[in-house]
Each structure stands twice: as C-alpha cells, then as structure tokens.
C-alpha cells in the first residue's frame, strides 16, 4: 500500500470521527473504502476502551444470574396460569415443566411470543426412552436471547403410539431436530412437512436408541455387527 492511500484513509477516519461519514462514503475504490471503515471501527473501539468498564461488567453478570434463577420459577408459574389443564404439576421441578402433548403447539407459540417469555431459540430436542416397559419422552431445551433465561419442556408419549405435535413452524431448527428424534426413536411429529430419516438410510429397520432395539442381521446382504455390551 502506498503512503498516499494510508494518508487518505487517515484523513477520512479523522473526519468521520467528527461526524462527517461522507468523507468515507465518497471514497470510490471499494477496497480502500472498506479499509477506511475498518480503521474507523478500530478507532471507535479504542476510544470506548479508555472508559473503565470492567467493574460494571462484573456486577452486570451477577445480576443476570440472579435474574435467570427468579425467572425460571416465574415462567413455570406463568404457564400453569395460562394452560392449567395441559400441565402435569406433580412432575414439574425447578428446571423443567412437564406438559401433555395435546396443546403443545399453542404452548410453544405462547412461549415464543409472550413478552415475558420470548423463547426465540430452540436449543436442543432430546429423545429419551424411559425403560423397556414404559413410555418415551421428548425434551426441549429453550433459551431466550432477550431475557437470557432457559427452560426445559418435557412431553411423554406412549411407546406404541408415539405422537407429538411438531413445532417445526415455530422454531425452524425443529425441522432437523425432529427428524433426528424420529430417526432414533420412531416418535412421529404430527404436522411435520417431511418426516423422514436423516442420519440413517431410509430403508433401515427399527429405532436404534430405543432400549428394546434389536439390530437387523443383514442390510442389503451386508452383515451388521452387533453392539458389544459392557465393554471393559
């Protein structure tokens, strides 16, 4: 880079810091202009750094963690008030709420849109097999980027007729997470547009993460190795 260009950038940044953004925007060459913008951002950052902010940061984070704790209980309370019939109060604890599958769509919408909840991010969907003789469960970990609180929603469904409403249209990532849960547990998500296997081949038999799963002996003529139990 020539000294000439550097001089130009320097002058433009100085003018921009005084409030005249046109000085940068008028640079014709795109690369030079972007370099000038980058230099401006850097200059602004350094100016901001001079103010002491470390101590205030720490107190902020302490407040946040306190906020998370209180709001977790509040959210459970809120949902109990809003949907008293859909929630299984006996099984709820501090960190999670247990709900019936029937109204899950409406609850999910409420959780995402209500100003007190604003759970805009679906973190994870985990399928769980509660035991060979008992039910399957789906666990949703929700997080709010605005309020910085989190909650876990659990829905139980029967092993032989495993159906849960799909929340794919509410959180877009639900699409792939639900396909993965279907793939491993055979839980059907009602209302999903394309519920098919995602990690395993389409013609694979059985639901591998169920506790009563038996591996098929051959797949297209290839012998399937058995999973060893109790490795030492």
């Amino acid at each position: 880079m020539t000294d000439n260009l550097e001089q130009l950038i320097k002058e433009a940044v100085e003018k921009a810091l005084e409030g005249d953004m046109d000085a940068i925007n008028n640079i014709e060459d795109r690369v030079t202009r972007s370099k000038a913008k980058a230099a401006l951002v850097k200059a602004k950052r350094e100016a901001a750094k001079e103010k002491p902010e470390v101590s205030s940061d720490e107190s902020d984070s302490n407040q946040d963690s306190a906020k998370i704790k209180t709001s977790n209980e509040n959210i459970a309370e809120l949902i109990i008030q809003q949907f008293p019939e859909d929630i299984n109060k006996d099984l709820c604890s501090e960190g999670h709420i247990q709900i019936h599958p029937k109204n899950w769509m409406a609850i999910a919408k409420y959780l995402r849109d209500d100003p007190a909840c604003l759970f805009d991010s679906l973190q994870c969907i985990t399928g769980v097999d509660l035991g060979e003789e008992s039910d399957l469960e789906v666990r949703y970990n929700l997080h709010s980027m605005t309020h910085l609180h989190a909650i876990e929603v659990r829905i139980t469904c029967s092993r032989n007729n495993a159906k849960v409403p799909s929340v794919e249209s509410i959180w877009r990532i639900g699409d792939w997470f639900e396909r993965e849960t279907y793939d491993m547990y055979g839980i059907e998500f009602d209302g999903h547009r394309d519920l098919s296997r995602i990690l395993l081949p389409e013609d694979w038999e059985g639901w591998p993460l169920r506790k009563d799963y038996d591996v098929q002996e051959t797949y297209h003529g290839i012998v399937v190795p058995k999973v060893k139990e109790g490795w030492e």
Partner: protein
Amino acid sequence: MGIVKGDQMILNMGPQHPSTHGVLRLKISTDGEIVSNIEPVIGYLHRCFEKHCENCTYEQVIPFTDRCDYIASMNNNFGYVVAMEKLMEIKVPDRVEYIRVIMAELNRIASHLLALGVYGLDVGAFTPFLYMFRDRERILDIFELTCGARLLYNYMWVGGVSHDLPVGFVETVYGFLDYFEPKLKEYNEILTYNKIFIERTADVGVLPPEVAISYGVSGPNLRGSGVKWDLRKDEPYSIYERFDFDVPVGEGTIGTTGDCWDRFYVRMLEMTESAKILRQALKDLPQDGDVHQALPKKIRPPKGSIYQRTESPRGDLAYYIISDGSPQPYRLKMRSPAFTALSVLNEISRGWMLSDVIAILGSLDIVLGEIDR
C-alpha cells in the same frame, strides 16, 4: 423433491466433492445457473456415537467425543468434562482449569486457521491455505509435545487432564504467540482484502439475525450476523470470567452485515482474541498443583440429568447427559453446532448462483464428523 418442472435440473454435489469438507451430498435444484432449492443429504459419516455411549463407561466416552469434531477435539473434550463435573459436583484445581483454557484456545486458533485456509481454497485462493497450514502445524506440534497426539487427543479427563505440561511448555507457547500475532496482518493482506476474494464473498449469502436464531445457528456464524453472543462471556463456564477479551461481531464493513465476508472476518478477529486470552492464561498459570488430584476413582454420577453448553469454535456445543446412577450413561445426546449451521444452508442459498453455494457452504464452516456423529 417430487416433480421436476420443465426448466429445472437436479444436480448432485457430493458425496465426494472437495468443497463439501467431508462426505456430504447436496441435492441442488437449479434453474439455469440459479439455485432454487438445496436438500442436504447427511449421514454418510454416522458412527452411532450416542448408541455407543450407552454401552461405554463415562471415561470411555471421551475418545468418542474427539472423533465427532475432529478439527477441534480439545473443545469437544472440554464440553463433555465440564458437563460431567457439573453433574458430579467436582471442583478441579486451578492449574487444571488454566491448562484446559490454554488448550481450548490453542485449538480454537488451529480450527479457525483450517476453516479460513480451506475457505480461501474453496473460492479459488490457493496460497493463503499453505500459509495458514504452516502456522497450524506449530499448534499441532505443541499438542504433540503435551500429550503425544496431533489430532485426537483424549487429553481432558473428568476431574483433570491426562498429562501435566511438559518442561518448557510456557516458553513454547509464548514463542508461538510472538510468531503468530504479526502473521494475522499477513493473512489480511493476502486474503481478507484481496479484490477477487471480496467480489466472491461480500454481499453473498446474507444471513439475517432473526433467521439465524430461529435456525439455532450459533458461534461465529451468529456473530457474523451482528448478534453479540458468546457463551464464554454470556454464560461463563470454567474460568472464562477471569479473562478480559472482546466478542467481535460482523459489522457489514465491506458488504451487508451477515454476508460470507463477515462470517469470515469474525473468525479472523476471534483469533486475536484467543491470543489475548492465551497471554493472560499463561501469565496467571499456577506453577504447582497435581493435575490428577481431583480425578475420581470411579465415575458414578448421581441420578439426574444435565444440559450444559460450551463455546466450541463452531458455536454452542451442548451435551445432554442422563444418569441412572450406574457407571454407564443412560442417555447422552450431543447438540452439535455444525448440524444447525448446515440446516440454514437452503434458506440462505436460494436465488444465488451455483458457484456461490460453494462460497456460502464454506463460510458456514461445517465439520461432517460432528453433523453425522
């Protein structure tokens, strides 16, 4: 995909295509050279990670986590041991915490170097790739010095680390940092502000922040869209609250906020921040302490479950562990950041040219080992 309309063509990219960074197949519907739909087909690398874990003891899971995201194995170990220690309520010595942070940040730099170098390769710049691999090599040498492995370390254990630091480790890392920090300027000159590179990436594949959040996109991809979110800052785990560092976000310096160039540049800036953390960690590293002191004799967590997230180089890496009190996990789920990043590909590539899909896919920095598990 159903019926193909008159002017449409279906093109298969992969499973063996150099720019897919692994074994990924993209079923691309094109109209001329314009992409109208992409359907990623994954699962070619599925190794039954979660099923295996249910048949292993808790210690035996750690080598498997290495193999999920094989570019950033240290960070994968880290997430798992943090979750396990929280479940078992183990307090590890300060020295172990510092060693872990040093390893995790070194691995973050190595992972970003690979991501950026290969990204340059994807869009047609061969030389930066060689520069970045040359420097990544030095980090791998440091890992080899520490635990004998260059790619899959099995280094972090529940309650400690496998080996104490070797003699002269601190000086070696200082030496690396002194060498590495000026190199960032070199990368910027050779790639970041290269005119052709800018033409290929600026304004391409813009990912708006609300779409990113709805798709669960995290890490540098989310920060590239201008969302200041970093678990090391916002939900500090281990000892990250002790360090002073910035969280760089995309600012639309060259094109639009959230374009491929922003995602690229955020990674470039993050390497500086990692170097900053490394310098602080090396300075404060306690000299004494047994790294095996807190290792439990038997890993038998109490009944219960935990969902713990950590910041891997690719984003929010989370483990959901359910324990029934036995030495084997009852259920172990890994929430991988690359899985969510790949799911957004269709959304942001529609309407772009076929060659831009390569640029967009590369900017998401996916690792197929982690997607397929």
